């Protein structure tokens, strides 16, 4: 019985150091205002330590929701977790005149978009007629792609069509842009146009 009481005297959490008998909630019930053991007397170390994890973020970065064209403001909280920068929370930016801090379920899930393990972080390569993905270094991939662009362009170059100059290739096409930044679309359009590629399209068409 004594041993029993002695053990009960501490807060009995695996992670928490046993504390003095004075911290025994039942005793605090008797000695304090919280006779029924509903509040002050029974608080645990976990409760006492509660604070928002965002308060300890290393930095808070202003961002914009990546999903839809409403363009809600986001605040991105970054902390080092196991020595690695990690997004620990993304929530609405109350300062935004667009969204006033609010987010829809997609915006509210955007931390998961960034941190989900479903995200592929390595280059994958499938050779012609291949049955499986293979690894490939980014550098090699970039070179292979550049080679293919140059070759395809050379093969399919049209100087003219029906007697008029067209100076283009229809052997290369590109699709996408609505999820990208303006700067990215700008470089793409610039590069494609210089390459003479015209079949450049994005979601605005669909």
């Amino acid at each position, binding site marked *: 019985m004594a041993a029993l009481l002695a053990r009960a005297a501490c*807060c*009995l*959490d695996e*992670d*928490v150091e046993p504390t003095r008998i004075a911290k025994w*909630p039942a005793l605090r019930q008797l000695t*304090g*205002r*919280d*006779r*029924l*053991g*509903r*509040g*002050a*007397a*029974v*608080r*645990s*170390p*976990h*409760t006492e330590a*509660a*604070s*928002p*994890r*965002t*308060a300890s973020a290393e930095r808070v970065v202003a961002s914009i929701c990546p999903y839809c064209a409403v363009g809600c403001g986001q605040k991105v909280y970054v902390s080092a977790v196991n020595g690695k920068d990690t997004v620990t*929370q*993304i*929530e*609405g930016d*109350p300062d935004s005149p667009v969204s006033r*801090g*609010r*987010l*829809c*379920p997609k*915006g*509210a*899930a955007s*931390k*998961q978009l960034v941190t989900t393990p479903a995200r592929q972080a390595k280059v994958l390569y499938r050779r012609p007629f291949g049955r499986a993905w293979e690894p490939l270094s980014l550098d090699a991939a970039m070179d292979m792609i550049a080679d293919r662009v140059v070759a395809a362009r050379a093969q399919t170059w049209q100087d003219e069509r029906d007697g008029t100059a067209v100076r283009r290739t229809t052997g290369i096409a590109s699709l996408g842009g609505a999820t990208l930044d303006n700067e990215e679309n700008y470089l793409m359009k610039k590069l494609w146009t210089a390459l003479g590629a015209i079949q450049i399209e994005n979601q605005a068409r669909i």
Partner: protein
Amino acid sequence: MTANRLYGPLADVSGDAGYAEHPQRVGFFTDTSVCIGCKACEVACKEWNALPEPDGDVLTLTGMSYDNTGALGSNSWRHVAFIEQPVPANGHAGELITQQPVDADGATRWLMASDVCKHCTHAACLDVCPTGALVRTEFGTVIVQPDVCNGCAYCVSACPFGVIDRREDDGRAWKCTMCYDRLRGGLEPACAKACPTDSIQFGPLDELRAVAQSRLEELHAGGETQARLYLDDPDDGIGGGGAFFLLLDEPEVYGLPPDPVVTTRDLPRMWQWAGAAAVVLAAGVAVAFSGRRDTA
């Protein structure tokens, strides 16, 4: 024990729980008449509280309108209900809540409501918790202390709203904390913050009650006669909810109990009955032992 510690209006819940000094009681007013059923509240809650992710294999459609969450539970602390209702041709006057035009097939309306722990003034879960894992905070809210809960599951059956539940793989009971950690940092709860239409309003409970009253009047004036407040009244069976609601139909339509009463209201009488039973037991033994010892 002072009056109203088990039942009835309680002016100062935090004081009752032994906090000499404490902030104002805060709560939620969920105005379901402006809920768009987007479930941002569900997602924001899960993300903030890092609730366990579902097991991919069990993801199936419920067939309950757009509700695939089903109910509040240990891993869903907000639940948005979707009710598709036929509206009787003569039954619905208001124009503030849409219905399709009435034709031969009648009309339809679609009610959506985000449910959450009520943070009851008289919280049955808290009262029955044998470990003190459930605790009233300085803000007047009710939270489970995960470092204390031993998973006895008593709270599960005590809650008149079916809110709190034990997470079976973890063994502990979980429910909405009203983002206690955020409140401590001066932040608004994650769900209320996300809610696009302000269907979930967070703030000092007194102020919310006033806001709710005026919203109710607005709806009534607009012909929405079915609108009513739910759990706003400190005289109700749970002493009023720390989270209360504006509903457009009977509570049970939303899966809420129509007139919940904190079970502890009847506790003194129940203890008396237990005493009586103990006496019966003792008396029974006495009778059995009365008379001479058998000599056969």
